[in-house]
């Protein structure tokens, strides 16, 4: 027999224990690679792009040629790949695990949608090409509008808004324009906003020049109807109501609220961030809404991309359709035309919200998502989203304290009562979830609940995934109650970094790299 072996061990031989504080020479830890700043790894002379030579020409820069260096670092392509792949590994993501951020609808992002958004007829067309050459792109916008109108039952849709907050502004500006046309802009000053509202709602109403009047919640977590009645009056421009609200509850009195506002001559703006709970179960029109934005990056699954981009089309009632901003689509024979100037318009657009027509890349993804689901699937989405949330609500209530009684919609809200006297705060609890491999839920929002924890699993989690998540949280809650405080206050211990000093960041802001730091 010919022996051919280097004789190295092929099964572990040690005791499997490793010192907790194993220090490495490189600063990297196994798969967790250390990665300095771009400006530290890059260099001005490095380049990852090959460009042809610059042809002979007489410069026409009007004497404004740059004479100073910029100081930009460069990287070759392999270096760039490493830099960014290493950094990517320091992020949590939906594709890694359950991402229960309430109000954010972190659902699976189908990759088909990414592929389709890159088709040249959408990705490689210019917003100001002759309209005759972009009929496919305009057709897609028209189809998206049709779907949004069908789902909500509303009369029209404005596509320009670039995110939810931009959509709020669009809807509120339509309302403002309608009030102005009625000659009541000086007298209708007040916008009612529940205390539980997302911060963008009051910020938007203020940006439109309105005064904000806060509405408290009642004991069930919904608009306090008694107080609402006292606040309704001829000076009310609108109510901005989120439904389902930010506590994950359907506003049962929503039709009465709409009637009250309408009778007083005001409008009903609905924050549609939580549309994921009600698609195919009710139509927004039937709730009495005048305007509502839809976060395509939530309900319709366009990826969040670490903070954006999004898209926030706004559906409008007949009373407001006329004020939709420029540009907008109209039928033109067999095709479509964009109305880009107020002078071409028979309507009364309140203005222009941005340079071009909206977030085309998001439109493609959202429409692909809708078509993939169809009428049956979209209803199933909402049913499963609500089922998943209620399942977690039921299971987690064994150890955690739900903020309100009864069932919820697509997200379950807890307060910190179960942590009382444990020395563990909502923040500590959330950070301990990181050690368990989960992204924390939304914390300290909505503001109407002490130490709020808002959990939104979405419909794209399996039962097994929900069970594992619930098991982990129940165990954490038990540990907190049993006095294992250190585990929480020191958390996270297993993330790439420990808790960060946000006070220092705010007191002495360092917002960019500077050469002297090197």
């Amino acid at each position, binding site marked *: 027999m010919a022996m051919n072996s280097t004789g190295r061990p092929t099964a572990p031989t040690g005791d499997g224990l490793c010192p907790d504080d194993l220090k490495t020479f490189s600063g990297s830890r196994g798969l967790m690679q250390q*990665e300095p*700043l771009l400006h530290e790894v890059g260099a001005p002379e490095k380049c*990852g792009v090959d460009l042809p030579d610059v042809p002979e*020409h007489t410069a*026409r820069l009007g004497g404004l040629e740059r004479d100073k260096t910029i100081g930009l670092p460069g990287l070759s392509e392999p270096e*760039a790949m490493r830099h*960014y792949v290493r950094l*990517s590994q*320091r992020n*949590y993501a*939906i*594709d890694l695990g359950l991402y229960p951020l309430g109000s954010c609808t972190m659902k699976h992002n189908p990759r*088909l949608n990414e592929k389709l*958004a*890159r088709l*040249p*007829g*959408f*990705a490689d067309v210019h*917003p*100001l*090409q002759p309209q*005759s*050459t972009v009929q496919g*792109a305009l057709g897609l916008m028209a189809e998206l509008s049709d779907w949004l109108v069908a789902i909500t039952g509303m009369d029209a849709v404005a596509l320009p808004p*670039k995110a939810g*907050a931009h959509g709020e502004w669009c809807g509120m500006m339509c309302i403002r324009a309608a009030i102005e046309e009625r000659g009541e802009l000086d007298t209708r000053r007040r916008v009612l906003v529940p205390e539980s509202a997302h*911060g963008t709602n009051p910020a938007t109403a203020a940006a*439109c020049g309105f005064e904000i009047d806060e509405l408290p919640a009642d004991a069930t977590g919904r608009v306090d109807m008694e107080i609402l009645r006292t606040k309704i009056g001829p000076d009310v421009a609108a109510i901005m109501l989120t439904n389902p609200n930010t506590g994950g509850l359907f506003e049962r009195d*929503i*039709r009465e609220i709409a009637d009250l506002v309408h009778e007083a001559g005001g409008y009903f703006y609905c924050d549609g961030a939580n549309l994921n709970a*009600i698609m195919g*179960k*009710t139509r927004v029109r039937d709730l009495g809404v005048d305007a509502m934005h839809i976060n395509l990056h939530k309900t319709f699954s366009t*990826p969040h*991309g670490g*903070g954006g981009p999004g898209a926030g089309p706004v559906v409008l009632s007949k009373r407001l359709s006329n004020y939709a901003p420029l540009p907008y689509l109209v039928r033109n024979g067999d095709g479509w035309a964009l109305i880009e100037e107020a*002078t071409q318009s028979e309507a009364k657009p*309140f203005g222009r919200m941005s*340079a071009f027509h909206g977030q*085309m890349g998001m439109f493609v993804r959202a429409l692909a998502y809708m*078509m*993939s689901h*169809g009428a049956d699937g*979209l*209803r199933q989405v909402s049913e499963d989203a609500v*089922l998943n949330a209620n399942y977690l609500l*039921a299971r987690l209530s064994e150890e955690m304290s739900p903020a309100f009684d009864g*069932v919820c919609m697509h997200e379950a809200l807890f307060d910190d009562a179960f942590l009382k006297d444990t020395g563990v705060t909502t923040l500590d609890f959330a950070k301990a979830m*990181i050690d368990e491999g989960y*992204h*924390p839920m939304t914390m300290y929002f909505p503001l109407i609940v002490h130490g709020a924890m808002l959990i939104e699993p979405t419909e*794209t*989690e399996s*039962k097994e995934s929900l069970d594992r998540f619930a098991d982990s949280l129940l165990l954490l809650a038990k540990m907190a109650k049993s006095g294992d405080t250190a585990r929480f206050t020191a958390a996270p211990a297993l993330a790439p*970094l420990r808790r*960060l000093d946000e006070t220092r*960041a705010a007191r002495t*802001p360092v*917002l960019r790299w500077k050469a002297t730091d090197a």
Partner: protein
Amino acid sequence: MRYLPLNEDDRAAMLARIGVSSIDDLFADIPAKARLDGLIEGLPPHASEMAVERHFTDLSRQSLSAGDAPFFCGGGAYRHHVPASVDHLIQRSEFLTAYTPYQPEIAQGTLQTLFEFQTQVAQLTGMDVANASLYDGSTATAEAVHMAARITRRRKCVLAPGLHPHYAQTVQTAVQGETMDMQVMTPAMGADAGVVDALDDQTACIVVQSPNVFGELVDLEPLAKAAHAVGALLIAVTTEVVALGLVKSPGEMGADIVAAEGQSIGNGLSFGGPYVGLLACRNDRKFIRQAPGRFAGETVDEAGKRGYVLTLSTREQHIRREKATSNICTNSGLCTLAFSIHLALLGEVGLRKLAALNHARACVLADRLDALDGVQVLNQSFFNEFAVRVQGNASQIVEDMAKAGVLGGIPAARLFGTGKFDDVLIIAVTETNRDEDFDALVATLAEAL
């Protein structure tokens, strides 16, 4: 349905655990009158990946894409070559499917790239600091105007004659909710210096674009001096940031705030969005505190390791609510990453060469067009975009060229409305244009005249 993992057994078991008998029990709060019993009307049932892909491919084919034609459109959106690695990297799950980095311990990837992005933007614009992005250049301009009004506590704003009309309209729309005195100067070529005459001690800011909407480069220095002399701010706008590789930065010329469209770097045309709004300003606490949007900042963790967090958030809507500096929440996160990666691949030498190449190619084409009968280049100066006067109606000429398969620029009337510059065509040239494209443009234009 491929995106929904629950099956009927799961659903039944879960309903039982919740303690309700049917799914509709969970929707009982919906008023009976508003409940939808059947399926949503007018929509088809779910569709396979193959079917959806087919539908979109058909739709895509109904447009003439820039890559399939000699292409010369600019006007605030530019077609540059984006390296394949950029698109690959931004599709990494960890970047693509992450939310806003509110939990810094598990979002250092996003936060560090934002910090790098802010640094690159600050360097490129010649400013001290930059934020983590806004929606696009036009909304960034509107935000800059709000910011200037708050900083100076003044209400008057002058929009220069060379500002992109869609930007001007965006600003005018954005200030409707407050009492601003907007002075929109009549659009004209080469008249940007005229803003000086509109300045007075009530002026919060002047908004000047360079290269301007006609492609003309504007010397901002005298404008900054004049503005500063009366306590006003200069907001410099750029829609083509590649220019900053070759021309003096607005910071160098005295701008106080820069609002720019960053699409040119890393991001495709995408029919107008998503793009990436850049906002940079001086390192002055008054400025930073009035700035809109997010900032990533450096700090350390409990163990003393360097890390990044979102900071100075008390300006933002989630804390300041109706007193926030802006209502923006979601921004252009992934587009900033594309921008940052592309700019990292270019680096100093790459960007400078790219800019030089754009300018040189534009000079070559401008000379060829100027030599045509019935065509006159109007610019004194330009970077990669210039305006020509054509004999005839530019909109019609552009349509005719499109029929011949050439996307030959933007008729100024598309931006300004008909009647003002009907015979002006705005032409942009980038590194993506080949000599053959020039030949095609010259030939079809000569034909269409």
